[in-house]
């Protein structure tokens, strides 16, 4: 069995960072990632089950880590060596138990909710955040029975999805995959859960003008979540800035009212809001802006197009950025992060609270989000896969994933 493994190797991280100047993912061959023989990690406890990956996605945060662009903030929440891959659909060859305590038969497919919170670390009592179901906000990510790791795919004890060897999944992480979902659908559940969490955490109000900056995986999934989960109960207008033609097609098909190139987004919002422009900012802009890119440019743009007292939701993982916060202060804006998943209260009367993952599983099926999986690569072709993922939009792709189903390797 093989796995892609990240070692703590500063020269290789440095080399990768230099190479990434040519494009994200371009430093895979000289970076800290290596394809090695691998075995399944040891079971950290009885409530852990081996999950053999079928498909595992390449996330923007994976690329940032491998490019050496990730914020140093995460340094203490990672343990080396680790196998990346937190967007995973796999098979429980020995069966298991899901997050709700339901049994999962041997051979059942499952996805993991990768946050390594208190339950996975055998920390009791649970911290207040885990206790209320908001595992993404757990503060114990470096403590307890596991080595540090904010998620599966960043922790040396659990393994990760970029491997033909099983990873270890805690019962609190496991969600069964419905029969109706393809493997491509299922590998989209984790990023979709992030988008669902972001869409619901923004508390969109009736009649709001909502802008989405960026239409990669997270942006498109956020559009889908806003359209399919929020909008049936809370009518709102969705305007999306998408750089590439394929992204624009998908955003429109997922429910955006208007899709424009990024450099036209502020003007489109201005027209919809009937706004003036002052100091390069809209006097009346979008009520909520989802920044699904996470760069200094996208955040600056988001802050410029949101209305006074409006809200900017950071969905894409940001790094260390330089942004003028004077308008945030002057216009009393709310800048809020949306990370991972938790318990959600869907809008509409009488809606019960549900896990972000449960809502995502439904959404992936209803919106056919498996179509966002554009390319599959065998592990052996990881350099190509990462380069493809780093240039996904430009190459007409959205989600690039590793295909671990055929040990001989095959791509489409």
């Amino acid at each position: 069995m093989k796995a892609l493994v990240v070692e703590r190797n500063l020269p290789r991280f440095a080399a990768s960072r230099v190479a990434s100047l040519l494009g994200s993912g371009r430093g895979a061959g000289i970076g800290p990632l290596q394809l090695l023989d691998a075995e399944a990690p040891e079971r950290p406890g009885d409530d852990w089950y081996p999950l053999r990956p079928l498909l595992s996605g390449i996330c923007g945060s994976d690329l940032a880590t491998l490019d050496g662009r990730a914020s140093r903030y995460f340094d203490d929440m990672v343990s080396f060596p680790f196998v990346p891959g937190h967007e995973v659909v796999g098979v429980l060859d020995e069966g298991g138990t899901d997050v709700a305590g339901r049994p999962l038969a041997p051979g059942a497919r499952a996805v993991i909710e990768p946050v390594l919170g208190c339950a996975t670390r055998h920390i009791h009592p649970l911290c207040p955040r885990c206790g209320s179901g908001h595992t993404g906000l757990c503060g114990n990510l470096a403590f307890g029975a596991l080595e540090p790791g904010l998620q599966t795919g960043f922790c040396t004890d659990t393994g990760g999805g970029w491997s033909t060897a099983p990873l270890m999944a805690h019962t609190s992480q496991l969600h069964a995959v419905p029969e109706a979902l393809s493997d491509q659908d299922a590998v989209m559940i984790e990023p979709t859960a992030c988008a669902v969490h972001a869409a619901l955490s923004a508390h969109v109000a009736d009649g709001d003008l909502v802008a989405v900056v960026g239409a990669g995986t997270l942006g498109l999934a956020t559009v889908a979540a806003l359209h399919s989960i929020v909008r049936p109960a809370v009518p709102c207008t969705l305007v999306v800035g998408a750089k590439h033609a394929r992204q624009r097609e998908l955003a429109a098909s997922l429910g955006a009212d208007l899709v424009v190139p990024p450099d036209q987004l502020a003007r489109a919002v201005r027209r919809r809001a009937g706004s003036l422009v002052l100091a390069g900012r809209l006097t009346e802009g979008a009520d909520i802006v989802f920044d699904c890119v996470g760069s200094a440019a996208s955040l600056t743009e988001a802050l410029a197009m949101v209305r006074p007292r409006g809200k900017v939701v950071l969905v894409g993982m940001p790094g260390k950025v330089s942004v003028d916060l004077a308008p945030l202060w002057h216009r009393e804006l709310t800048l809020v992060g949306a990370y991972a998943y938790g318990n959600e209260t869907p809008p509409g009367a009488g809606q019960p609270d549900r896990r972000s993952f449960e809502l995502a599983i439904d959404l992936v099926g209803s919106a056919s989000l498996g179509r966002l999986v554009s390319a599959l690569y065998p592990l052996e072709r990881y350099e190509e896969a990462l380069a493809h993922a780093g240039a996904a939009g430009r190459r007409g792709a959205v989600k690039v994933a590793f295909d671990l189903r055929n040990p001989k390797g095959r791509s489409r």
Partner: protein
Amino acid sequence: MSPRPGFVLDVDSSTPPTLFWQGERFTLEKLPEGSRVIYAPEPIDPLTDPQAAIRHALEHPLGDQEPLPALLRAGMTLTIAFDDISLPLPPMERPDIRQLVIEQVLDMAAEAGVDDVELIVALALHRRMTEPELRHALGDRIYDAFAPNGLLTQHDAEDPDNLLFLGQTDQGEEVEINKRAAESDLLVYVNINLVAMDGGHKSVATGLSSYKSLRHHHNPETMRKSTSFMDQHRSELHSSNWRMGRLIRECGVNVFQIETTLNNDTFPGAFKFLQKREWEWKAKDRLAYVAASSALDRVPAKHARKIFHSVRAPHRMTSVQAGDVEAVHAVTTANVWEQQGVVVEGQTDILTMGLPYISPYNVNSILNPILVACLGLGYFFNLYRGKPLVREGGVLIMTHPTPWEFNPVHHPSYIDFFEQVLSETTDPNVMSEQFEEVFATDPWYIHLYRTGHAYHGVHPFYMWYWCAHALHHLGAVIIVGGDPTSVHRLGFRAASTMADALEMARDVVGPSPTLTHLHSPPILMADVQ
């Protein structure tokens, strides 16, 4: 030697390549044998003493109007309105006609003891002129005497306090014009009649009006029924303006109309070859062409644009007439036709034209894609009387780079129009119904129009409506050398070469088409028999 009239050349094997404008550049194209090329008449002789001609016109008005001196008296209010930056094209060498005329009007007013005099730029919904542009049009003496005292203003179609609603025509058209102009004892309007479309009742009824009034004739239906704008008697646009103008007169607004015509001496020294017939080019013309072409090919477009926008045309005045609006305009129109008219026998399957760098709406600015469309389909296509040069269902081929480029100061709503409206529809009726009102009332566009140098929010719609007749008439529009993305957004076809364009055109009009090239500028008007 007297100037030669316009000319229709039949292209044969000995005909040299024909000059095509392509924005800030030009090319030579070998047209198929049997094609026709329409050349403008040569510049007619200007007035030998324009100052005397102006004085004569003011003292000997046409129609039912008194001489200007008789209309001037102490204690009266006098307003002088004049055409804006959109005329003439290119801007003329100093002194501008407006300066010559207004100086004499002001001299007469001073002699009569008129103290209350104001000057108004008749902008309609165009952009405000800059100080250098105003100084160029009026001369420093007038500018310095009036502007610092607030007596030189630019019509503001969005200032409710300075608009006066005069009523409705018998067709229900609302007439609202500049309040100062309407309430003055005398309104003198100074025109530069570059083409037959300009002047007449359109001067006041359009130039000094508001969106409320303009929308009655600047709409797809009226524009489509104007066949053509250059033929007042077959132009719904003009019919509407004439109804409005007569209502303005009935409301007691005393308009003293002054109209002037220019010869078509369009380009100075080094660019003189641009208005010559190619087979008559001498060595120095060929040298000038090669030098200009190679120089322009080497410089970035923005520098080439700067070079061309610094060109001042050696236009000279050929006539001036004053008095009653309609009597004056009849004479003016005849004078325009004398300079620009060319008799053309029959229509053509394919009409070609090279679009230059300038239109009425991009002086000192960028000819953006919407203005490219308007220049070709709204203006050049309509340079006819009788029948369009190209038959119904025929093809129009234009040469222009058509970059996706806008001047954000002058044309902010054009950017949105291009991004939003044209991405959804190119149908003038649909855009009129679905988008016009929103753009016309957008507070940001209104702010920029009133305080900056921006065309009004609704203006790009009007540019597209100018194309309505051509869009309805033509089977296809092809732009040679145009940025494909921009061209497709306009709903047209892009071709990389003239040969490709002709091949594409044959698919529309058949395998053996007739072809006519409109060799303009200089401006000409085809009298299609």
